[in-house]
């Protein structure tokens, strides 16, 4: 199930909320767990078993590490059991076929592919487990003594599909003591609606343009079409991804929990370094805390730091999908991060903002081309199309004319201008302000519903002439 669906909005969520708020405090976690299971079963029933096994092993290893607090060797064994299991599951489900394909290509063997579908959320789930076990090992958090609470943490449905990556320490307290109030409900619901609107009204709409390109439903890929195409992809992925994060954060708040922020207007960045502080923040900090710093970070000299950056960004890239283009995408950013670290950043800070901003946007846009096409030759062709200035742009202008309004809305909403103005309005306690705010949210809610209802809208034309 996804949040942005009629089933979720009008059946699952209302029933779940009703039950959740009616049951006594001590059963609220049980409702969460049950809801999570139904939520996941909706997409992939088999995955529930993986999730349960993972939760049990994490919990058991956590307890063991706690038990052998003084015995470094034993402690380490249990750390590696759990890491091994989590990484094993991640590699098996996500990368097995990719590895087989490449081994086949390299050695000429023909090992059959496993064709296992990637279970929803496995990347987020394993990363959370890993953060938990490492934190317990390091002693930065106490191990969870109750399996019931640990299970609640690890199955928490709002964030498993698309983040944010929630660390145990963030919600440790709220697993026991949920801050349920009308204020949290209202603010959470508002946040959820913002995410819903981002996903359904912006991402899906600009995504329709990208879909024309992805499915090759055009006659020529002219420069105009190629440029607005990659722009639409950039906006789609941002509004989709951050929309999901907003919905997750909002839901958590409704339930009385607080998640970490995941996006902070990444497209206003003036350097790549800044971009990665604003984009998918919880993933960035995960790699920083569990890979980059343990590798030595920047404490072992520049040479070592560069190597560390390359490792971290190669991993970040490949985390996004089992395909070479994602690795390439990660390394592409590593290059700019290293350049910025060495000299570029100082220089970027001095030049007028318009230039540093354009620099960052262009690098990010070209990055999305790497991200968007799994096939390397497609990337080359796309780049060529962007600069093939002799080509007839007629069709490109048609799409430009059709999508320019929604693209401009997307660009405008990528800046914090409206969000800030709206936040000021939300603080005013006048009738007019209250009315405007309420109507805005209702508008988002009803328009999103309309979009979701019509999505299946696909009349079978030739059935009844």
């Amino acid at each position: 199930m996804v949040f942005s669906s009629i089933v979720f909005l009008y059946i699952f969520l209302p029933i779940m909320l009703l039950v959740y708020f009616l049951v006594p405090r001590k059963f609220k976690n049980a409702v969460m767990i049950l809801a999570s299971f139904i939520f996941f079963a909706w997409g992939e029933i088999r995955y529930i078993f993986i999730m349960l096994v993972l939760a049990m092993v994490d919990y058991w290893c956590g307890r063991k590490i706690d038990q052998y607090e003084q015995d470094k060797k034993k402690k380490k064994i249990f750390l590696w059991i759990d890491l091994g299991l989590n990484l094993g599951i991640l590699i098996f489900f996500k990368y097995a076929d990719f590895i087989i394909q490449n081994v086949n290509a390299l050695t000429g063997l023909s090992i059959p592919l496993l064709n296992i579908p990637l279970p929803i959320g496995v990347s987020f789930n394993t990363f959370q487990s890993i953060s938990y076990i490492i934190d317990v090992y390091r002693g930065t958090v106490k191990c969870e003594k109750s399996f019931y609470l640990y299970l609640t943490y690890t199955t928490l449905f709002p964030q498993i599909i698309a983040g944010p990556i929630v660390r145990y320490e963030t919600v440790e307290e709220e697993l026991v003591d949920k801050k349920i109030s009308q204020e949290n409900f209202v603010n959470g619901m508002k946040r959820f609606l913002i995410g819903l609107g981002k996903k359904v009204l912006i991402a899906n709409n600009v995504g329709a343009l990208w879909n024309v390109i992805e499915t090759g439903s055009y006659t020529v890929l002219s420069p105009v079409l190629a440029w607005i195409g990659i722009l639409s992809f950039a906006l789609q992925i941002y509004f989709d991804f951050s929309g999901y994060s907003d919905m997750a954060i909002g839901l958590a708040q409704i339930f009385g929990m607080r998640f970490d922020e995941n996006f902070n207007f990444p497209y206003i960045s003036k350097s790549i370094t800044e971009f990665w502080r604003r984009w998918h923040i919880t993933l960035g900090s995960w790699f920083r805390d569990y890979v980059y710093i343990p590798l030595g970070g920047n404490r072992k000299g520049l040479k070592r730091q560069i190597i560390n950056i390359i490792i971290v960004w190669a991993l970040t890239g490949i985390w996004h999908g089992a395909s070479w283009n994602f690795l390439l995408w990660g390394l592409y950013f590593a290059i700019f991060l290293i350049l910025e670290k060495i000299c570029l950043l100082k220089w970027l800070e001095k030049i007028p903002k318009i230039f540093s901003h354009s620099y960052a946007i262009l690098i990010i846009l070209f990055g999305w081309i790497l991200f968007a096409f799994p096939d390397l030759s497609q990337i080359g062709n796309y780049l060529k199309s962007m600069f093939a200035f002799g080509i007839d742009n007629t069709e490109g202008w048609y799409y430009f004319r059709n999508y320019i309004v929604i693209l401009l809305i997307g660009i405008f909403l990528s800046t914090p201008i409206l969000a800030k103005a709206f936040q000021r309005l939300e603080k005013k306690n006048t009738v007019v302000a209250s009315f405007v705010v309420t109507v805005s949210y209702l508008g988002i809610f009803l328009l999103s519903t309309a979009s979701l209802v019509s999505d299946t809208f696909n009349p079978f034309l030739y059935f009844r002439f």
Partner: protein
Amino acid sequence: MQRKMFFYTFMSIWIVLIVFNFVAPKVSFSEEENRMLASFPTFDFTKLVEGEYLKEMESYINDHFVFRDLWLKVKSTFEQACLKTENTGIYIGEDGYLFEKQVLDETKITNVKQHIERISAFAQNQKVPITMMLIPNSVSVYPEKLPANAPVYDQSKLIEEVYQNLTSIKTIDVLDTLIEHKEEYIYFKTDHHMTSLGAYFVYQEYAKENGIPLHSLEDYEIRLVTDDFLGTFDSKAQLILQEKDFMYQYQLKEKVFLQVEYDTQVSNSLYEESYLQTKDKYSYYLNGNQARVKVTTSNQNHEKLLVIKDSYAHNMAQFICNDFEEVHFIDLRYYKMSMSDYIEENGITQVLILYNVSNFVEDLGLRSLK
């Protein structure tokens, strides 16, 4: 105050929608969209494990969401507010004209090739004269009404290519005739069909080519049957304030008596009044989609015509049937028997293969023509 206002308005609207959605009666057919809505999925353990069951459940829930028709209008209005000139695959043209957005992709090109092969092979083995008519769609007759720069493929080129590659068959190109009459009301604005008048001009061309005596428009008694027709293009685009179409009936003043045999019923008229009360009004002509329709007339000229066709033939029937002793309409999507045998068994004297271009590039059973 803000919090309370939001809380109470939002909650009441949400709850009303949730409750309505649970209690509202479900219908199985959407008039507005002119299609069957998803039915409640039957439970099956494998389907559940595969995730199929819940997917079906989801389309059921979406299809049956309360006030569905209203939501669709809201969505299309939002799209139009974003100044889009297309909606769900329909171009919103000038003067109330809607057009289908069709891309000639690989599958369609393959379809066309196969259709050419099949028709040529079929025609080679027949002793009776065979005529092919590929009718252009409104998009080719009114390109100037399309949104600026809208990508379309050249139907006249496609028709030419098809005709060049067909063997043992007579072909008639009607595009020029239709363009000549474009100021008249020959295509529906909201539907993919021609009007009866358009069908009249197309049939005139067939009659001319085959030496059939022509009827002028004055020979007909023309009657408006509805001024309230919103066709398939409108069903898809779901626009508000869309101009409606008119449907006419053309009956020869010098009446020809007919007996019309459908699969399960017999009638004495080419029209089926009951459809005028539904959204699917075009089915008024020749009772909608039928596998086979046999019309026997009071003519005694021993001419028996077989029409292998799509629904473009349905309103043409009122012109065709005046000139033959028997007319057999076959829709290959539903009628799977051999046409060669059919011709022999029924003593057919001439064959017309009639399709519109946007259908011809799809798979419509022509592949199994034999």
